[in-house]
């Protein structure tokens, strides 16, 4: 029994499609960029008076939404 479980599950492990790997990398990159906010942490005004930090986070938000929509369209079933 033990052998059968391991064999059957093992044959379906891992990223079966390149798109899964690409989207996983995109999500990891997105959260890495969230923590990169400390590198651009400034109250200096940019577009519409928004601080550098605020503007950066809004751009990042759009990127995050785009990744989720792409994931739903291309990978999620």
């Amino acid at each position, binding site marked *: *029994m*033990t052998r*059968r*479980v*391991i064999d*059957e*599950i*093992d044959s*379906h*492990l891992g990223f079966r499609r390149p798109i899964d790997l690409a989207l996983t990398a995109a*999500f990891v990159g*997105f*959260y890495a960029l*969230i*923590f990169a*906010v*400390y590198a651009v*942490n*400034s*109250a200096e*005004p940019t577009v*519409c*008076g*928004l*601080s550098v*930090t*605020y503007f950066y*986070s809004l751009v*990042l*938000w759009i990127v*995050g*939404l785009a990744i*989720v*929509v792409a*994931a*739903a369209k291309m990978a*999620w*079933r």
Partner: protein
Amino acid sequence: MEVWAITTAIIIVYCLLCIGIGYVAGRSFKKNLEDFFVLSRKAGLIVVFLAIASTYHSAFAFLTSVAVYASAGISFWIAAMAWVILAGVWGYLYGKRVFLLGKAKGFITPADLLADYYQSESIRLITALVQALFVIAYIVVQAIGLGIILAVGSGGHIPYQTASLVLILIAAIYVIIGGLRAAYWTDVLQGVWMYIGVWIAGLLITFKFFPQGIPQLMDAVREVNPKMLVMTWKPEMLLSFIVVYGAGLMLLPHLWIKYYAARDTWTIKWSSVGTVAYLSSYYIPTAFVGLAAAVLNAKGVPGVIEPGFISELIKAFGSRDAVMAYMIYSFTHPILAGFLLAGAAAAAMSTLDSFLGSTSLILTRDVYQKYIKPNAGERELVLVSRILLITWALIGWYLAVLKPGLIFDITAIACAGGLQFLPAVVQAIYPTKRAWINRQGALSGIIVGSIITVLLAKQIGGKLGFPLIFHPAMAGTIGLVFNIAVAIIVSLITSPPPEEKRLEYYRILREAAE
């Protein structure tokens, strides 16, 4: 008609509308637990999407987000944007699997799944009890919010305690009448109402004081306190907030059972996408109001608002959570204020109803039916769940009357509790080649993680005199680390988990994928 009477009347009309929906929902109720709690697993995209979105966003989103913006500035936005995106993605990844397993095996509660996978009634009992206890914190939060909304909306004519009791009982009544079906249906109304309301409130209040719009607001904030425009939270706090509010909240029973109710995986997929967009964009108008409040609090407007008004609100309500309600009541037309405050009540009630319903469900099914009266009929179980629902509502109200503090902090306690189920859940729904966690490991991890979370949380551990205390989000994250370590170590030194169950779950998920 006086301003407060108009505002209060509109909130009452909204409440009657919710009860009416509860009544209609109750008429189509089939008197069995599966229909009472998971809509016979037939909920479509609109219902699932708005039920998840409006349940996720509560008094937390409408009230405390403004309060936190007014003190911490955009740090809240950066963290909140990150945690709601994680919530949506994680909601899909685990929600789809929970749905498939729930449909295949007839699960209704979170404990059903964990008890079945780990073949352990102890895990069922611990899951039910731990979740029911942590959920109290979330019920308290909604009771606080409802008390603030009606007390402010009535111009102080209805005291906070009474206001909280009245609205919490209204939510309890419509769930009793129509079961969680009523909660799902009212969630649709509330989800739309609160979203429109928060945007109208955000734009009206911002442009009232800053007619040149966002640039003027930003300049004013920069002049008052430029630190409000940068990230001031430390990285470990940012991480804790993302993990606890993103993953932990989604594992609480009120959201978990929403996935059981879905019709199919397509519904879960697109409701997850909609949830991300809805939840994250919700925090944009609240940022405007919060930052505007910070400026007004610092400078005041002669004849309109006094500097330091937030301190007065803290004296009245025990925290700064009343800022949003106060600004809506004070600075918008009474009819609109009634509509907007009803939207705030919708935000709180849409979460409260699901919590009351789901908590009564897990206590009825996982404790009463399993351990107290296994032969109880469906009608008796529904009756017991209704009694438990009222009991939990009253416990939440009583604790809210004590004014325990900022909603933001109290919410984190409940979410940190939900987070302690993460390792056990991941092991169950991702059947991999090697099982890292077995029955003993899962049980030990949940217990150790929950205890550490409680002891380290400043609101609980602090009162118990525990020497090391943190924000509850941080306590929950530390609890999770210990949870994982204990779960794996205990699993390594005890017997391996059942291979048959792992294969069974794997096959259910694989067949669905194919």
